[in-house]
């Protein structure tokens, strides 16, 4: 019985840790100010052992935080050995190469004490609304233009908050009060984690996390290896072109599965851009592994063991491994495309195992007005990010999802709320007919949004959109999804990337891409075609052209 009881307790403690990180995540979400946090859960929280191995992590909105955190803590304990920590210490950084890929993301790590001894660490990450610099957009020339850079530092030392640092942080933001609120939310999150971890250790009379950590990590690693062993061994390649900024980007992936491990190498991909769409390697790793894990081991809890069998490489200086001081603010525009590149390799390893390519990048519209030269014109000053998406790729046995986020987990903006908080009028938000790639299973549809100022004023758009030149591709004979379109009501096209003005007498019209189709369109069930025609999401002309369908 005692051996069995011990195993039961290990499971219960593991479950408890997952509950503690969820609780930390909720604490952070509740008290956070930054809109992207509340709308999209752009945060993470996790618990680590003293070696910096991640034991549990909250399941929250954005993959960019999910797996970068595992690496962040290992970096930070090199700066601050836990053995030298004092109760009440708290470390902070927004270094994109240590944290979550851009300066807006702050990582806090707290050594956790039990009865005066350091026993573990907990960490949390959140996106702060503004950290100065050129503001949220891809146009900076290097990371120093992108805002204030905080190397690993002590935000709290022995319970005393670093007032100098707080003063600097306030002074270097356009929204100092919000930022301060967000930092306190992060601090509260770490404190909850330490308290609840202590409660659990006392309940089970633990003095060290090592045994539990070994159990969690070994179990998860072995289960993940087992899944990988069920895949064929070998090496497969895939290439994908996407729009990029000043040049088109080639994403070349080479994936190897052997002996219960998976390695993917982005050698031969494009070099870093001069604009802020570059990824630090940690961020590329996070998104790539997230995409792979969705297919290979979606149910295995995220921790150091579950991540260990995956390795992601990219040559230094490439766009997936840009070196400091490359600009990185909009790194998600490339990061979110990496799962499509990786899944394309898995498709070759085992056809029928993954969806077609989808829009993958957010089709969000960061709009501003009343700043800078427009400040004195009486225009309302506002900044609002309208978060939207295109269609996802068709699956091997079902259609793609219309206007749905993947791999990101964000939540779309509601029109009435946007108009309540910003001087905007949205004239249209509807699905975009015929945009889902035709196939035996059809790609999800994109959407059409038209938006203008309610004050007859100039709006500024900081665009970071993709799949305007290169659409999401279909698989196995499925057609490509429709390309995205970004233009003014006059018909003048806008660039997919960069800051641009929308004149007072015009509206902005965006049509987000559709997902790729899967399988030969001629094999599509006529009942599904008829249903699409009835809904109006496929037009008779397209049904005839793509499916040879006659009513």
């Amino acid at each position: 019985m005692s051996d069995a009881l011990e195993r039961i307790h290990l499971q219960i403690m593991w479950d408890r840790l997952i509950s503690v990180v969820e609780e930390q995540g909720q604490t952070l979400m509740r008290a956070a100010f930054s809109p992207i946090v509340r709308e999209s859960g752009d945060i993470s929280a996790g618990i680590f052992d003293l070696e910096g191995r991640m034991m549990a992590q909250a399941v929250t909105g954005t993959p960019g935080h999910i797996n970068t955190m595992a690496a962040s803590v290992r970096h930070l304990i090199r700066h601050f050995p836990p053995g030298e920590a004092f109760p009440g210490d708290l470390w902070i950084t927004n270094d994109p190469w240590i944290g979550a890929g851009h300066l807006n993301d702050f990582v806090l790590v707290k050594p956790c004490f039990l009865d005066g001894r350091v026993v573990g660490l907990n960490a949390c990450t959140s996106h702060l609304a503004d950290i100065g610099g050129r503001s949220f957009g891809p146009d900076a020339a290097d990371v120093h233009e992108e805002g204030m850079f905080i190397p690993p530092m002590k935000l709290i030392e022995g319970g005393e908050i670093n007032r100098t640092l707080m003063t600097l942080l306030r002074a270097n933001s356009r929204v100092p009060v919000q930022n301060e609120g967000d930092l306190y939310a992060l601090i509260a999150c770490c404190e909850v984690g330490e308290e609840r971890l202590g409660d659990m250790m006392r309940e089970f009379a633990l003095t060290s996390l090592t045994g539990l950590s070994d159990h969690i990590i070994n179990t998860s690693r072995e289960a993940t290896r087992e899944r990988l062993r069920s895949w064929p061994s070998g090496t497969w390649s895939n290439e994908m072109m996407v729009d990029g900024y000043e040049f088109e980007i080639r994403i070349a992936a080479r994936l190897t599965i052997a002996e219960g491990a998976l390695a993917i190498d982005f050698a031969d991909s494009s070099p870093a851009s001069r604009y802020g769409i570059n990824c630090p390697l940690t961020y590329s790793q996070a998104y790539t592994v997230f995409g792979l894990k969705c297919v290979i081991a979606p149910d295995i809890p995220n921790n150091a063991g579950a991540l260990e069998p995956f390795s992601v490489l990219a040559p230094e200086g490439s766009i997936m491994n840009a070196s400091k001081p490359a600009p990185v603010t909009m790194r998600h525009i490339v990061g979110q495309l990496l799962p499509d590149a990786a899944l394309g390799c898995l498709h070759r390893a085992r056809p029928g195992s993954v969806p077609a390519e989808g829009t993958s990048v957010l089709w969000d519209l960061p709009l501003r007005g009343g700043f800078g030269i427009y400040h004195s014109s009486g225009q309302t000053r506002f900044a609002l990010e309208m978060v939207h998406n295109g269609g996802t790729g068709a699956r091997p046995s079902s259609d793609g999802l219309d206007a749905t986020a993947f791999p990101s987990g964000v939540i779309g903006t509601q029109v009435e709320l946007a108009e309540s908080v910003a001087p905007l009028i949205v004239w249209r938000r509807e699905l975009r007919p015929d945009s889902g790639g035709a196939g035996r299973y059809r790609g999800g549809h994109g959407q059409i949004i038209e938006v203008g100022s309610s004050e007859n004023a100039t709006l500024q758009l900081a665009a970071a959109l993709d799949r305007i030149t290169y659409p999401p591709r279909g698989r196995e004979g499925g057609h490509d999804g429709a390309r995205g379109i970004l233009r003014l009501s006059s018909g003048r096209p806008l660039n997919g990337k960069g800051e641009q003005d929308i004149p007072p007498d015009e509206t902005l019209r965006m049509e987000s891409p559709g997902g790729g189709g899967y399988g030969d369109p001629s094999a599509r069930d006529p009942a599904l075609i008829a249903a699409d025609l009835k809904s109006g999401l496929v037009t008779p002309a397209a049904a005839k052209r793509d499916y040879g369908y006659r009513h």
Partner: protein
Amino acid sequence: MTGVRLALEKAGISADAVLSVIHGTTLATNALIERRGARTALVCTRGFRDTLRLAYENRYDQYDIWLNKPEPLVPRHLTWPVTERMDVNGTPLLELDETSVLELAGKIRDEGIESVAIGLLHAYANPRHEERVRDLLLRECPDLSITLSSEACPEVREYERLTTTVCNAYVRPLMARYLGALAAELAGAGISGPLLLMTSGGSICSLETAVSLPVRLVESGPSAGAVLAARVAGRCGESRVLSYDMGGTTAKICMIDDARPQTARIFEIARAARFMKGSGMTVRLPVIEMIEIGAGGGSIAGVDGLGRISVGPRSAGSEPGPSCYARGGTDATVTDADLVLGRLEATGFAGGSMTLDADAARQAIRQDIAVPLSMDVMAGALGMSEVVDENMASAAQVHAVERGKVLRQCTMIAFGGAGPLHACRMAEKLGIRRVVIPLHPGVGSAVGMLRAPVAFEVVRSRYMTLATFDAAAVAGIYSSMAEEASAIVRQGAGDVPLEERRSCFMRYLGQGHEIEVPVSGGTIDDGERKVLQAAYDDEYARQYSRSVPGMDVEILGWKLVVAAPLPDDPETLMTAAKDEGVTGSPRRHVVDPATGQMMDVPVFGRESLAPGAVFEGPCIITEGQTTTVVTASFHGRIDRHGYIVLEVREATPS
């Protein structure tokens, strides 16, 4: 109706002595889950035909790339745009094009539409266009059932407002027929008192309200349980309570402050993945806020790919039920574990109507848990029980944190068929120091309905910040809401003095969650701005331990609850004898969850425990519909209400 007649006969009461009939029904919920509602169309603003399908643009499970989202209740070809547009302040940007409305009449007839939802942008700010569409359609199709978004849910956020409106339209014809027929039959049986309906918000409403806003009747069953717990809390003088109701398939958890269940304004119906947040249709209506976990007596256990014991959410239900029911079920369920662990007695289950088969329970646990994990049956059963308790405790903990509550300061009120069996262990895991088991814990919901007030809640969106606070506008909103709500409450409560409770939903400019803050009664003037600022700062500091000075606060909506007085409390106090220790006569072997060892513990029949009786854990208290397990860290007594009150022994560290 047969049931009503039988009940009257059995109780020896004549029909004309019935003052009112309170009815809780699952008909609306089931019609939504099973998609058996009316053929419904939606009229929307041109350019916004896909609001229901776009929803939140997300997947409800981050790692699941294979999921499908529920289809909207109204298909796209029955979603019809009309030309019009209101702005955020309710000023028309485009006047309603009436010819675009009149064209719909033909379609309504051709498509055989029975019910129409009208959901235009910003209609909460100005319902004029919606009302005009309704009038025009009724002129053409006088028998049409019509629901306006400005009536069903006059709140900002189009996806949730339209979903609420469409759900209402979808069940309205069905509910009108059903409730009309029921009222007629009651009248035919000589019952002249009004028919009142239980709502999801934990209050009761009149027949008229139920017929026009039937969406408010969904999920009224679980809310009745929370109403019961609230009354128990009030009697015991417990100001902070965790209500814990565990039945055959699920456990429901609700926070109760000052004898009032925590309420919310948002709620999901018909989840595609039963316990997965975000997989259902999100509606905005007054609801008792509770979480439902797939953890009940019938929850099925197994071993997952990582060699971990999993319990639920799949359930054996009551047919075939747990293996020990010996009705053909072969799955290992929580009830099977409770039996193997000695917490349940094989004889006398369910009021003596059933004898449990312990061999069948052992066999199921052996095969599904013990063999795969190479442990003995007792350890397997203990593992199942610990896992299900941990699942419930963890869900309760996260729920409390989301609401800014501290569970270890709460008293637990436990009921439902399986609640008292698992209450002490849950309390230990949550650091809760007092557990109350009310009378008749097995049938909480039915009793709760008799304790619900007649009340109606309205919320209106009118955006302002404290800096732009407009006292006249707020006064106007409250006077029109009071008129609407009082008329509705009087239909059910008659001419009694009514209580009004005002509040509003505030947040720092740009912050995530709104918090509910009380608004002064009586006349609203400019002074209210200061009152609200202070109330907001207090409430914010209470929930988050700090306020943020210098930050403007925005107000998203205004709420009014109008309620009739609570019904009289029929329960009488028992005279408590002096505290007297009792010892159980039969004894039973029960597993100690902390050590896994068998303990020999006393068993009491609840009917033998008079007020004033005191006893020590570990022990077991049996009664008709359930069993209370008192673990070793608790001791207990029977209070003057006849409730079992269990408290952590002071000597025991929590």
